[in-house]
């Protein structure tokens, strides 16, 4: 073989159409990937390590919850909502029960409202602990995961003592709560609050000034307030961008107007700010729990609700501030025992659409950090 034949064979000047542009690479991340927090598939368009664009493929965990609702009575559908955002089941239940209560125009008695606030704030702490543990694990810190899950156990114990289940709690019923606070509930909550604050400092000690953590999160996945509002992003992701919007203050539901608490906001809208906002939210949740436990009124826990729930014809939208953002329920009633249609506005699903905006121009490793910081739960994205 002569030299001339070799150059003929490797003709680099004419472009072969069957091959992709060698500088661009399309990569599938997931659906089976530990740092996509479930079965999320992200199609990444890469230039080397740099992300040029993303596309999310969802639906791997679709169970048709909204369709199931059309074949169940209002009370029967209550346990199913726990299975959407399964790390914050109590918040889901609260949103659903309140939406149906609004449709029936009944209000839960004060004691039930306080109990609901205590449990949803505990649930907010538990949800943020799962977020912190897994998010830190994605970035490479293993210790926070063990610390968070160790302390989350205390919350789950309170849930189990109160309503009999740790994860899919089914804690509230339409019209109030069915379970009275057990013996020692107040003490348990106070004990948890007292023990949790030093532990929160411990998490901060591990991460806030940790050089690797700061390098990996500061300036990563920046979202400015205008983009947040345009994309419909809510929850800690929105507040970290500096928009002071919290439904607990903006449209107070339950007994939130009775409590004194702050809404933490960030300045830069990057991953580090979102981390700080969520940590501060846990502190504020402890503050709310303490106030609610101290002011827990006596009285009934269930409003007068007919045994067979038949709301009048109409439609209602009610949203609450779930740990991940605005969780809304839109219910259409045709005056039968079953809802005509239920549409859920899940915070994770809406927040996930900010992913593309956030990761453009970043590296592949940052995609993992950004998915972690959005705090998505695929059970809620797909429903």
């Amino acid at each position, binding site marked *: 073989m002569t030299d001339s034949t070799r150059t003929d064979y490797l003709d680099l000047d004419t472009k072969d159409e069957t091959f992709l542009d060698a500088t661009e690479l399309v990569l599938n991340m997931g659906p089976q990937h530990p740092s996509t927090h479930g079965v999320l598939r992200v199609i990444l368009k890469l230039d080397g390590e740099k992300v040029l664009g993303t596309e999310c493929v969802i639906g791997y965990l679709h169970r048709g919850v909204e369709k199931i609702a059309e074949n169940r009575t209002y009370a*029967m559908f209550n346990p*199913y909502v726990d299975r959407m955002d399964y790390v914050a089941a109590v918040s889901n239940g609260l949103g659903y029960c309140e939406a149906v209560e609004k449709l029936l125009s009944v209000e839960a008695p004060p004691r039930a409202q306080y109990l609901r606030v205590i449990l949803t704030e505990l649930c907010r702490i538990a949800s943020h602990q799962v977020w912190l543990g897994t998010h830190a694990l994605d970035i490479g810190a293993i210790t926070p995961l063990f610390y968070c899950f*160790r302390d989350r*156990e205390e919350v789950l114990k309170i849930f*189990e*003592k109160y309503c*009999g*289940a740790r994860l899919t709690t089914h804690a509230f019923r339409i019209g109030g709560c069915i379970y009275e606070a*057990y013996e020692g509930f107040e003490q348990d909550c106070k004990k948890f609050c007292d023990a949790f604050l030093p532990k929160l400092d411990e998490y901060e000690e591990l991460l806030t000034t940790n050089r690797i953590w700061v390098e990996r999160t500061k300036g990563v996945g920046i979202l400015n307030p205008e983009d947040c509002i345009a994309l419909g992003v809510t929850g800690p992701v929105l507040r970290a961008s500096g928009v002071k919007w919290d439904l607990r203050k903006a449209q107070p539901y339950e007994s939130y107007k009775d409590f004194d608490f702050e809404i933490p906001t960030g300045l830069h809208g990057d991953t580090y700010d979102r981390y700080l906002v969520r940590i501060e939210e846990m502190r504020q949740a402890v503050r709310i729990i303490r106030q609610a436990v101290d002011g827990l009124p006596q009285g009934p826990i269930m409003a007068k609700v007919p045994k067979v729930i038949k709301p009048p014809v109409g439609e209602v939208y009610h949203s609450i501030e779930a740990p991940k953002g605005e969780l809304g329920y839109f219910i259409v009633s045709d005056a039968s025992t079953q809802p005509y249609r239920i549409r859920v506005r899940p915070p994770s699903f809406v927040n996930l659409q900010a992913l593309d905006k956030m990761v453009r121009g970043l590296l592949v490793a940052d995609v993992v950090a950004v998915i972690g910081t959005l705090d998505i739960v695929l059970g809620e994205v797909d429903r």
Partner: protein
Amino acid sequence: MKLNPLLRKIFLVDLVKGLKVTFHYQPPSEAITEQYPLERPVIFERFRGQPRLNVNPDTGESLCIVCNLCALACPEQLIVVKGERNPATKRKEVVSWTYDLSRCMFCGLCEEACSTDALELTQDYEMALYTREGMVLDQAALERGQEPEKYAK
């Protein structure tokens, strides 16, 4: 504590600081791992586990009055109750009672619906079986409840 970075390195200050955290969690009182199955977890009273049909302890008769409320309350429609009126006592008596545990999500709605406290979700939680057929519990299985598993070292 401000120290010269070189001195910090020589005296291994950071290592000692890190190990202090590690050894802080060494005492047995800090251990949170449960040695299941040798050590049984504490199950609280309201836990919703294996269903049981209660019987009157004095007479051994079933407390179920075949009102069918549990079957109507169940979101998964996994309870099937069939009964017949006994002409002698004029009471409805159970003919067949099945509970499909494989579809149960332990929401507790059946327990709440029961007017005589006959159906109860107990604190038993070891419900694993080798077959799906075995998960359809009949009246006898529901009344007998779970046989506690004995573990030996």
